[in-house]
């Protein structure tokens, strides 16, 4: 078989899942570990066509379950290779154990969660946005994981590359929250040539790297000593000191967890920033993300024709939540949160703004149609 290039540069018409897979390969993916689950499976099916046939072939392994997938992803990452896995609802629940381990051992990896309706098996073939809180609080213990949410096929590609960069630069797992709509929706997307987009590789011990022109502090993100390299590389899910060895003292644990939070918050400004659409004169702001934003976008255009001043604050990085930015850009405006969940995005929004907001909860496995949003907006605007 002919060797394939990493970057399939050019214009493509394909689904969000394919864009995620291509984004990962563009960013330098080596190991993919997965377990079939609707609607994330097509990522895996595309990876298996591409990854083993690259000029520098990567490795694809179909694991026995999601717990094995995430743990193998961590294992691969410790050999200084870029690794990822993708899953949906129930699989994401199973992966929580491994996510905790990845956080504790500061392992760079990317996890793409293609959200569907839940709880349990729920609505496998319909979209949902009910894993927003799980992405933050799913595993036990305190932690913060950078979480990105694309709204188009192009962004599925872009944010996957960004996710790998953030993971490598900050030595942390990173989530990409896609959803069932994006996973099957086909639209145009462009893959840049190799080298056109920044691709970051993690630091060796004693080395500093730059990401988006910013030098990453070695004190916050220590260089990673991987398997097969000079010194003994060791880490554990237990509280540990800088060498990776077990140390259960309060001081060490505090230092470790503080640093884990600090590194994500200090560089939060380098994560994808929220997109503000028609916000300047808006009196009502729709706060939303993912495929729901596509509906909100359409709704805004419709009600703008009728003279209602509505804008959209579309989150691209959900965690850490851009509290400051949201507060500043929505001062004195009515807020409408739209999500395919009962009550998840409202939590961080209300916490950031310290007030109640209007809400469209649409957790029944469908994207809220623009008509639902326009109706609510008219209600709020009094028209």
């Amino acid at each position, binding site marked *: 078989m002919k060797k394939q290039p990493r970057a399939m540069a050019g214009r493509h018409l394909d689904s969000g899942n394919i864009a995620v897979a291509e984004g990962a390969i563009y960013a330098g993916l080596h190991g993919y*570990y997965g377990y079939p689950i609707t609607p994330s499976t097509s990522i895996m099916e595309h990876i298996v066509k591409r990854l083993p046939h690259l000029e520098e072939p990567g490795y694809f392994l179909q694991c026995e379950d999601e717990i094995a997938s995430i743990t193998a992803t961590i*294992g691969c990452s410790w050999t200084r290779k870029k690794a990822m896995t993708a899953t949906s609802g129930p699989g994401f629940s199973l992966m929580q154990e491994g996510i905790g381990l990845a956080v504790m051992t500061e392992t760079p990896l990317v996890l793409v969660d293609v959200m569907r309706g839940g709880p349990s098996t729920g609505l496998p073939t319909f979209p949902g946005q009910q894993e927003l809180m799980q992405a933050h609080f799913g595993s036990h213990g305190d932690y913060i994981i950078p979480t990105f949410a694309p709204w188009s096929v192009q962004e599925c590609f872009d944010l996957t590359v960004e996710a790998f960069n953030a993971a490598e630069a900050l030595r942390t797992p990173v989530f990409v929250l896609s959803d069932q709509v994006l996973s099957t929706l086909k639209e145009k997307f462009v893959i840049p040539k190799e080298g056109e987009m920044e691709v970051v590789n993690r630091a060796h011990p004693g080395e500093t790297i730059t990401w988006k022109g910013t030098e990453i502090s070695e004190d916050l993100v220590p260089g990673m000593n991987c398997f097969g390299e000079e*010194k003994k590389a060791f880490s554990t*899910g237990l509280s540990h000191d800088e060498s990776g060895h077990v140390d259960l003292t309060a001081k060490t644990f505090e230092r470790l967890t503080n640093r884990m939070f600090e590194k994500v918050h200090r560089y939060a400004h380098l994560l994808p920033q929220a997109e503000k659409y028609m916000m300047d004169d808006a009196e009502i702001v729709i706060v939303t993300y993912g495929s729901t934003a596509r509906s909100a976008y359409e709704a805004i255009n419709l009600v703008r024709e009728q003279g209602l001043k509505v804008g959209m604050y579309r989150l691209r990085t959900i965690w850490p939540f851009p509290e400051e930015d949201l507060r500043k850009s929505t001062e004195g405006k009515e807020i409408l949160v739209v999500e395919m969940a009962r009550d998840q995005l409202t939590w961080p929004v209300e916490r950031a703004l310290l007030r109640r907001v209007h809400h469209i909860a649409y957790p029944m496995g469908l994207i809220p149609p623009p008509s639902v949003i326009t109706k609510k907006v008219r209600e709020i605007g009094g028209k």
Partner: protein
Amino acid sequence: MEIDFSKLGHNLEDKLTSKMLPHIWCSGCSLGTNLQSLVRGAVMTGMDMDKEMVMISGIGCTGRASGYVEFDGFHTTHGRAIPFASGVKTGNPNLEVIVFSGDGDLFSIGGNHFIHAARRKLDMTIICTNNSVYGLTGGQASPTTFEYSTTTTTIDHNLRPFNLVDLALGAGADFVARYTSAHFKILPRIIKQAIETDGVAFIDLISGCPAIYGKRNGYPTADYMVKNFLEASVEIEVKEDGSHLLSENTRVEFDRTKGYTKIPIGVFRRQHR
């Protein structure tokens, strides 16, 4: 002549992470012996422990082993040593991957991973310190606890234990052996063979937990335990018709008043046909 005390230390001191010793294991625990056998086996292969080998362990007493030796290592979550090893092996196939974990970790919570690893045949060595008990949590029954033995969760009786050799043979492991921790003379050689096997090598290492399991089940002290292991061990006779591989011939027998009564030991399979 005068002894220079700064030159003293264990013969394998440069292979041990000295700052972590003494280890957390109880007096008389077999784990230390097993760990030393592993290190000696690894040294015998002539490979560089730091650059060419990775030792992965799960949770439990055995899980802590990877922190005590100068292998590159990782202490994973409960039962996930094998999937982690699969990730390492596929990430860098030049690394020799050793999974060193306990019976509860590998065969209870991680049982599914074991059979799939054996089926998949990624090159790795799996060493199970099989002491029939969950030690670190205080002595609960494990998948290899014997039928009439006492643990904190099996007061009157226990259900049938796993025969790990039978399980590994059935799942398709390429190298299957069983020894006890008291076979420290031959074990390094067996471990070397296991590491050099292409594919999944499995060693069921019958070990003792005198402090928690033994005192309730017939081997109250470590020195009795070692004698018990040697007395109960029976080297298998390899038969043409393969009858030595039958489940009833590979089963470990145990009496809760005397300790082990029969331990079939040896290498049961060398390379899968």
